[in-house]
């Protein structure tokens, strides 16, 4: 077995053209695309997302101060005098208008178009597809937010954010909204603790960067991931084509004559693919990072996560290699098989978001795309870069593992039992 793996890796190493293709080309493309799109990203980024957001205000703002007063006295057991003082202060803070200001300030405005609607209307429009999401300001929001801010608790009444469909695009907006709420609560808390008489709320700034707990997901990161993944796909096709050459060069027959089980050959291909894809992915990330500093100041945990995802993706690619290898052994025709491989790669590449950001595709395609190994990988990576949360990786990694198992089984099922039978 070791011999098979060693041979495959050695062969790859010797194939300088291929080596340059899968290592240098993606880095070069990341570099070029990064510069080509840099302008676009920095200036026009807002226009790439245009979310139609319905804001349903159910809060009776007029009654807010009275509600707050009651709450302070009943729940926080404040003296009437203290309560009145706080309510006095609270007059200056109006969370609902603040939220509207925030949504309509110049940065966010480019991303979101706000429609003030009644809930029923909003739901209808969502159904018709005119709107993407609803933000509900529930009854008692003002009073609850202010109350929570004064007593330093997390509010129990929260903004409700509903999406028509979960997409990368809308999750970005989700971050904005969450960031706003977080910021809002945070500001109140700070001011209360500091005991300032005049409460002044500063609005969080718009845009991706400054908002939310998550990190930025930049264009250069996107290119690094997608180009790495895309060329990994190409590498899988090349690995399978090399099997085709092994047949044509008769070395496959020679291998059979040694009484080696064809399965060794098969597993050898898979393992060498895992190694090669992993090295390639890591190479592209590290070199891109060195040149463009795309992941500045990230923690060790972050990098371990990256490595783990690369491993997972490598396994997925080995599953694909298994299927491709079986196909080429079956078809016994390198050119035709190669045609099929390129088609699959192109398809995976497009719907998995490797050529254009997935958001540019129609919804149904986006949904299929999230089932491709490279699509899943991209989703995982995007989440990890922004939030570094293990929980968000669970679903895509399960799906990826599922892909590995399924494709390996498909490869095994397709694998000709007695070597190649002419």
């Amino acid at each position, binding site marked *: 077995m070791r011999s098979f793996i060693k041979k495959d890796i050695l062969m790859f190493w010797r194939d300088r053209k291929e080596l340059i293709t899968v290592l240098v080309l993606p880095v070069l493309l990341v570099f070029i695309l990064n510069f080509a799109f840099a302008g676009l990203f920095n200036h026009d980024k807002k226009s790439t997302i245009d979310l139609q957001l319905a804001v349903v205000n159910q809060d009776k703002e007029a009654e807010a101060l009275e509600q707050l007063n009651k709450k302070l006295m009943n729940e926080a057991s404040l003296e009437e005098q203290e309560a009145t003082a706080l309510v006095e202060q609270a007059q200056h803070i109006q969370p609902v208008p603040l939220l509207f200001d925030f949504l309509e300030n110049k940065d966010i405005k480019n991303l979101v178009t706000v429609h003030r609607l009644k809930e029923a209307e909003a739901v209808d429009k969502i159904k018709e597809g005119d709107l993407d999401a609803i933000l509900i300001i529930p009854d008692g929001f003002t009073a609850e937010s202010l109350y929570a801010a004064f007593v330093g608790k997390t509010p129990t009444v929260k903004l409700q954010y509903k999406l028509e469909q979960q997409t990368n695009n809308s999750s970005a907006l989700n971050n904005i909204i969450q960031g706003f709420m977080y910021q809002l609560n945070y500001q109140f808390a700070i001011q209360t603790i500091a005991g300032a008489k005049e409460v002044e709320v500063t609005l969080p700034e718009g845009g991706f960067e400054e908002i939310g707990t998550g990190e930025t997901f930049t264009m250069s990161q996107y290119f690094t991931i997608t180009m790495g993944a895309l060329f990994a796909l190409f590498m899988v096709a090349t690995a399978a084509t090399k099997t085709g050459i092994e047949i044509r060069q*008769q*070395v496959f027959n*020679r291998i059979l004559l040694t*009484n080696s089980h064809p399965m060794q050959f098969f597993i050898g291909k898979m393992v060498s693919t895992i190694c090669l894809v992993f090295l390639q992915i890591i190479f592209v990330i590290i070199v891109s990072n060195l040149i463009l500093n795309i992941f500045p100041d990230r923690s060790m945990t972050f990098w371990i996560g990256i490595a783990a995802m690369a491993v997972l993706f490598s396994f997925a690619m080995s599953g694909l290699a298994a299927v491709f290898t079986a196909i080429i052994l079956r078809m016994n025709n390198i050119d035709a098989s190669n045609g099929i491989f390129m088609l699959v790669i192109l398809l995976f590449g497009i719907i998995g978001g490797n050529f254009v950001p997935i958001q540019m595709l129609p919804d149904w395609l986006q949904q299929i795309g999230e089932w491709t190994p490279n699509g899943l990988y991209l989703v995982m990576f995007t989440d990890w870069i922004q939030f570094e949360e293990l929980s968000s990786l669970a679903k895509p990694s399960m799906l990826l593992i599922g892909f590995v198992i399924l494709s390996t089984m498909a490869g095994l099922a397709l694998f000709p039992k007695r070597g190649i039978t002419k």
Partner: protein
Amino acid sequence: MLEAIHLSKNFKGKKAVQDVNLYLGHGESVGLIGPNGAGKSTTISMISSLIKPTSGEIKLNGVNTITKPGEIRKILGVVPQELALYQELSAYENLHFFGSIYKMQGKELKDSIEQALEIVGLTDRQKDLVKTFSGGMKRRVNIAAALLHRPEILILDEPTVGIDPQSRNHILETVRMLNEKEGTTILYTSHYMEEVEQLCDRLYIMDHGEIIAAGTKAELLSILSTEDTFKLELSKLDGNFIERVRAIEGIRKVEAFQLQMKIIAKKGSNLISELVHLADQQHIQIINFQTETPSLEDVFLHLTGRTLRD
């Protein structure tokens, strides 16, 4: 030790090999000869368990190798007609890979690689990539790869096609040495009659998927041995002389061209003295006289009406 019985192979209805019987005795060197497309490679692939015959049997010491290919693969070395090598790997790396999947390792593997390289005379080029080799050297590596596990039977499929005379001689010598010194049983395929004549004790002649003749060299030559061929060069030649020669008993055919005559006669008709006498009578001098022994090539021509390479 190895026999093929009524072996046939159809490719999508096209008959590539038909009813071939072939036997390899222990330590023998056997040739399989035939023109392009005769079915030699197909026969060999079947014998070496790489393709399944449409019908017929192959037995190794009485055991069916079609259902149990493991045994024959163990003792068989196959040098395929096409190069079966990784071009991007060096000669040494190729041999190392094939040796290790023969489950050899450590010193045993190193030794057998060294020996195989020595046999084919490529020890000093072992580190070079196969793709940088000349055609002849590639073919020699191709042979070395089949020798690693010291096979008892070595099957070579046209190992000398398209290479320089030097490499060719080297290969022929190697095969002879393996047969004579190591006692390796050889099945050698070629469409060069002279190679097979040199190397093999016995041979099979194949054409259109069938074996049309088989036997030792002498046996095959005896197919043509009912006739003697003479060639004469004379000081002058006329119709009268030709007529008189034709009239001699036992003469079957006379051809004349300028001052040369080709005479085919029944074997043992002892007409040399008669010819000399006749020439003397006509005042013709015999400048040159040759008896021609038939070659295996002539046998092939006789059997098929075609030459081996057209």
